[in-house]
């Protein structure tokens, strides 16, 4: 038994660099695998709806008639299910977080009409 068992560690903390980053002045680089948010390449998307079926949180809605792919970022649990089952590999998990939002609104991505041949 004794006292000041944490003395060396305390001295290192006093004179060393702080353990925390000065957020938001300094931000840390995310890891390549960090789950930030889901992005869709709507040009490649065929609106098949498999991601909607596999999503355990019901965050994704795909509408073929309206040609939209919708995600509610507040429901998404970032489980990787959607992009892993996507047959066209048009979904990606980006490592950056989405910006803060004042309203809990869904993000709707519309697929442009296919160019008429000729």
């Amino acid at each position, binding site marked *: *038994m*004794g006292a000041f068992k*944490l003395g060396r*560690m305390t001295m290192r903390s006093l004179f060393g660099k702080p353990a925390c980053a000065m957020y938001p002045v300094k931000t840390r680089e995310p890891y390549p*695998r960090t*789950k930030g948010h889901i992005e869709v390449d709507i040009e490649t998307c065929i609106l098949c709806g498999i991601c909607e079926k*596999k999503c355990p949180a019901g965050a994704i809605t795909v509408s073929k008639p309206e040609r939209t792919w919708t995600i509610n970022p507040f429901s998404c649990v970032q*489980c*990787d299910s959607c992009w892993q089952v996507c047959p066209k590999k048009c979904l990606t998990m980006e*490592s950056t977080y989405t910006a803060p939002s004042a309203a809990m609104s869904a993000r709707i991505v519309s697929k442009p009409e296919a160019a008429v041949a000729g």
Partner: protein
Amino acid sequence: MATRTIIPFGPQHPVLPEPVHLDLVLEDETVVAAIPQIGFVHRGLEKLVEKRDYMQFVYVAERICGICSFGHSLGYSQTVEALMGIEVPKRAEYLRVIWHELSRVHSHLLWLGLLADAFGYESLFMHSWRLRERVLDIFEETTGGRVIFSASNVGGVKNDIEDSQLAGIVAVLDGLASEYAELSGAFLNDYSAASRMKGVGVLTKEQAHTLGCVGPFGRASGLGADIRALGYGAYEDLSSFAPVTAAAGDCYARCEVRVKEVLQSIEIIRELAAKIPAGPVSVPVKGAPEAGAEMASRLEQPRGECFYYAKGNGTKFLERFRVRTPTAINIPGMVTALAGCQLADVPMIVLTIDPCISCTER
């Protein structure tokens, strides 16, 4: 006989990370009895098994608790795999155990910080959590999540850890272990820490056995029960495994067991990282659990033995899923340890069972 007073303690209390309510029956400053009450964070997650198919439910299972999240996804996955007769690749089993042991390291470091906070040693609390951050960084690097990983699913694991990353993990843990040696010295050898913990909240081996205590709480009273010793998953490939036990059964013994278990977990990760086999990390899963088929499995969570039960009904939705968590079993032991203690020691004794009420109530 002194006048008896009943003091309500919790569910909202500065020392409690989670809501448990105790009615403390006092004679002067001495606790004569404690009457526990839970049920403040019940979410009905087990019922959700009827609404999410057995592949989707793993994401619900890992949200039973934030600290044991990987353990719950692993427990659920291995129960459903046994129910459906799925054999998981060896590499996946190793990766699961590596993540599970890392979870134990971060859970115990979190607990050590909370304990230091409970007996008023703020800098020790901060340093414990500073070290824990490194483990959370490993989780983020390897799974993408810091608390909820979504790494384990039925049939294996979702992503591999490359060998270079495994070497990096071991290097981080080596650095952590050297700083942890200083930290553990403060917990085990510092006079002020020992004076708050030694001889406080004693639970004898007989009492722990009678009340069925599990995990570090039971092992601190001398019970040698540790489900990892049964050799499930990759634990069977360990060269040796012996549960960490202590004899005294007081708060200091519980701290000592957890302090040593962190080092034991680091050793397990080192050994498994050195001999992890190459190969696939998951197998395709098809079909559904048979109607009426039942399966139960156990695993050692950071807080103790956790029991899982699943029953199929022939569809993709399970008939029933049940979790019995270590805290639910340790509450009678905690109440026994509280009897006879001083009022000022109550927060610390409650903390030493490492209560996880979110797990208990699901």
